[in-house]
């Protein structure tokens, strides 16, 4: 009964978006805010009802599918416009609608002064609708619609201040870089259809172990393409460059889209397709390496940036790298766990930075902040809690999720992954507290003409709520005690994968093809899980986090002159501060040749060849017409003569 409401969840924000988009200017700012937040609240409440309905499902049934209508059917290929509710979807629904609601409320305060208030909320609601479509769709194509929809809304919102050239460029960049990934994703969907004859999640995941050979070419290509799609949306190497620039958008956008929800869509997709990824060890290794590499690289860049939002953007890239590393070693629960806690604390951090920017009238450079603690206490405390969370200080939620990722990267992966993870954790603790100290502590470097002030209640309340969630969110996955990991038990039906039978199927298929199956017995050995190792890793990573914080304390509170002394003239520092020159590299290798080639095509091919041919034809016809024009003298008798001549010649032809 309650599950029948499923299709309403993405519908509410869509209706809100339509109302705000078409009538927003007429109904006034108050009503716009009410519609936007109201639709989000309805969506959230409906999610709660669906959760209740899901719990009432009969024993053994883990997926509820609602087919709204058949979208299209061509031959034996038919796509339903349908939604599915399973544990993974529910987790994502709560993150999207819950965090989305909080950020909507915050945005009501943050965007108050804007003229295009209604436009902002129309896009914002549309984004939530597309994101819900992405996580709730029951097939790849519907997911792709959501995938494109969030990309589009991201483009709209990055370029929200469209009168600013940099914002427009950033929007375009985000859109184009995303398109590269989307293209790969679409190719993967086509390949999946080619093999399975269906793009329905349930069918594909069910049939995957029977139709794909473990480690075979087909599954490797599919998962690689899917992963390229994920790197685009989730800002991983090599397609991460758009995310720092995306900070041109208003801060609530950065919090909702570029931290909490959209950028984690890639992680969601990988977890959703875990049955495919499990079959391709090569792709898994690539995913883990790309994730770990991104985590370190983004963290190093984050240490050198001065724009408060850019630091957080690199931090986001780095944390999503963690999630992919977890996916790559097969710890999907850890990935989703980190996704959820990250949504809480990163949203809180972004909103906190928005509150700071709001409080000192749009200044984003940390060198012009400092000592803001006494002016904005609520912002400071919530920000501090979130920073401690992301640094991995127990017992905050980030500690649990990060440690789970690290533990699995050591036990299910190898020491290299763990090494990458722990170094990124050290860097994370350092740059987060560099941010905190530079912004809130020390002496004020704020422009004397600016009087910092705390933000209104409508903005600080969401901060408090998010900080609270970030604090207690770790309870979702209590480690060490077997069976206490709520999220693990909850996601079990989605992540259940029978490797032994999959390998058996692969063996049969290889034999049927007349090929020899390699020995896979070592894969089936039960993995050892030791509570002691887990515990000692926790202690170790806590020490590492404390070292990071202490390092930041020494460098930015005790002896603020030290960083400048250490970094001056170091080529390594310059390299990192300039973001490894990756933007410049892409500019030279991809953008400039494309622009040059396009110029060539425009000026040579288009203007000269194509336009020449078209205009030439037109000119030739014009010339002939002018010749024929002389026949038309305007004398009626002349025309009569033509009639007669024609008649006579007709007679001559006939006889």
């Amino acid at each position: 009964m309650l599950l029948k409401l499923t299709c309403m969840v993405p519908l509410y924000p869509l209706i809100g978006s339509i109302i705000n988009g078409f009538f927003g200017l007429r109904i006034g700012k108050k009503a716009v805010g009410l519609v936007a937040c109201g639709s989000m609240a309805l969506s959230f409440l409906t999610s709660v009802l669906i959760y209740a309905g899901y719990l009432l499902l009969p024993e053994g049934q883990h997926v509820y599918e609602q087919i709204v209508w058949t979208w299209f059917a061509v031959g034996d290929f038919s796509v339903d416009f349908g939604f599915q509710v399973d544990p993974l979807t529910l987790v994502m629904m709560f993150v999207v609608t819950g965090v989305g609601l909080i950020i909507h409320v915050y945005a009501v305060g943050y965007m108050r002064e804007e003229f295009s208030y209604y436009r902002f909320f129309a896009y914002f609601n549309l984004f939530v609708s597309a994101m819900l479509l992405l996580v709730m769709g029951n097939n790849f194509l519907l997911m792709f619609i959501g995938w494109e929809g969030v990309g589009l809304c991201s483009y709209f919102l990055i370029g929200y201040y469209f009168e600013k050239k940099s914002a427009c460029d950033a929007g375009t960049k985000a859109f184009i870089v995303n398109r590269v990934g989307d293209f790969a994703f679409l190719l993967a969907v086509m390949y999946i259809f080619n093999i399975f004859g269906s793009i329905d999640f349930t069918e594909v995941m069910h049939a995957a172990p029977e139709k794909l050979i473990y480690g075979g070419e087909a599954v490797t290509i599919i998962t690689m393409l899917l992963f390229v799609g994920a790197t685009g949306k989730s800002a991983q190497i090599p397609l991460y460059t758009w995310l720092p620039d995306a900070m041109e958008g208003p801060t609530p956008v950065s919090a909702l889209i570029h931290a909490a929800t959209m950028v984690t869509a890639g992680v969601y997709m990988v977890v959703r397709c875990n049955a495919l990824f499990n079959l391709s060890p090569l792709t898994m290794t690539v995913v883990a390496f790309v994730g770990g590499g991104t985590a370190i690289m983004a963290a190093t860049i984050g240490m050198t940036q001065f724009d408060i939002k850019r630091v957080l953007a690199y931090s986001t890239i780095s944390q999503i790298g963690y999630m992919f590393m977890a996916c790559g070693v097969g710890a999907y629960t850890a990935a989703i766990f980190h996704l959820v806690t990250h949504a809480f604390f990163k949203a809180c951090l972004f909103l906190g930075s928005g509150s700071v920017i709001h409080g000192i009238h749009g200044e984003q450079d940390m060198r012009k902040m400092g000592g803001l603690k006494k002016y904005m206490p609520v912002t400071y405390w919530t920000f501090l809690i979130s920073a401690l969370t992301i640094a991995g200080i127990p017992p905050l939620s980030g500690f649990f999720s990060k440690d789970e990722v690290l533990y699995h990267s050591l036990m299910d992966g190898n020491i290299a992954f763990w090494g990458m993870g722990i170094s990124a954790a050290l860097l994370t603790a350092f740059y987060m507290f560099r941010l905190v100290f530079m912004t809130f502590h020390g002496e004020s470097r704020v422009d004397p003409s600016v009087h910092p002030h705390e933000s209104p209640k409508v903005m600080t309340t969401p901060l408090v709520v998010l900080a609270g969630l970030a604090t207690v969110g770790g309870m979702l996955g209590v480690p060490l005690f077997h069976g206490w990991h709520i999220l693990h038990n909850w996601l079990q039906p989605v992540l259940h994968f029978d490797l032994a039978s999959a390998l058996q199927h692969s063996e049969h298929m290889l034999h049927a093809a007349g090929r020899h199956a390699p020995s896979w017995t070592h894969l089936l050995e039960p993995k050892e899980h030791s509570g002691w190792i887990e515990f000692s890793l926790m202690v170790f990573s806590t020490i590492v986090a404390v070292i990071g914080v202490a390092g930041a304390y020494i460098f930015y509170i005790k002896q603020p002159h030290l960083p400048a002394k250490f970094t001056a003239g170091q080529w390594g520092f310059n390299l990192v501060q300039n973001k490894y020159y990756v933007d410049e590299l892409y500019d030279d290798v991809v953008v400039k040749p494309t622009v040059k080639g396009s110029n060539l095509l425009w000026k040579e091919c288009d203007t000269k060849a194509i336009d020449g041919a078209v205009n030439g034809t037109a000119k030739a016809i014009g010339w002939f017409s002018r010749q024929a024009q002389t026949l038309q003298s305007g004398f009626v008798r002349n025309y009569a003569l033509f009639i007669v001549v024609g008649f006579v010649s007709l007679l001559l032809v006939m006889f």
Partner: protein
Amino acid sequence: MFESTVPLPHYLMLSATLFVIGIVGVLIRRNVIVVFMSIEIMLNAVNISLVAFDHYMNLSSGQIFSFMVMCVAAAEVSVGLAIIIALHRNKPTVNLDEFNLLKW
């Protein structure tokens, strides 16, 4: 029905002659009224051949057709004269060569 002593070719010759006179009149005369009359002559030339064939082949549809042509001719006269009057109101002349606006 009495036998005609005039053979068919004579009628056809008369018809053709009248028709050619009409065509030549349309082509060479400048007075719009005369051109109009020439068109009438052409119509009547056709009428002659219609009636002649009808008589020669012992039918009656030819004569009915010639009535048809006369009716159309009467209608055409009324329209044509109206056009000529309209022309004359625009330009006080009946010389066709003065009306040469019908071109691009």
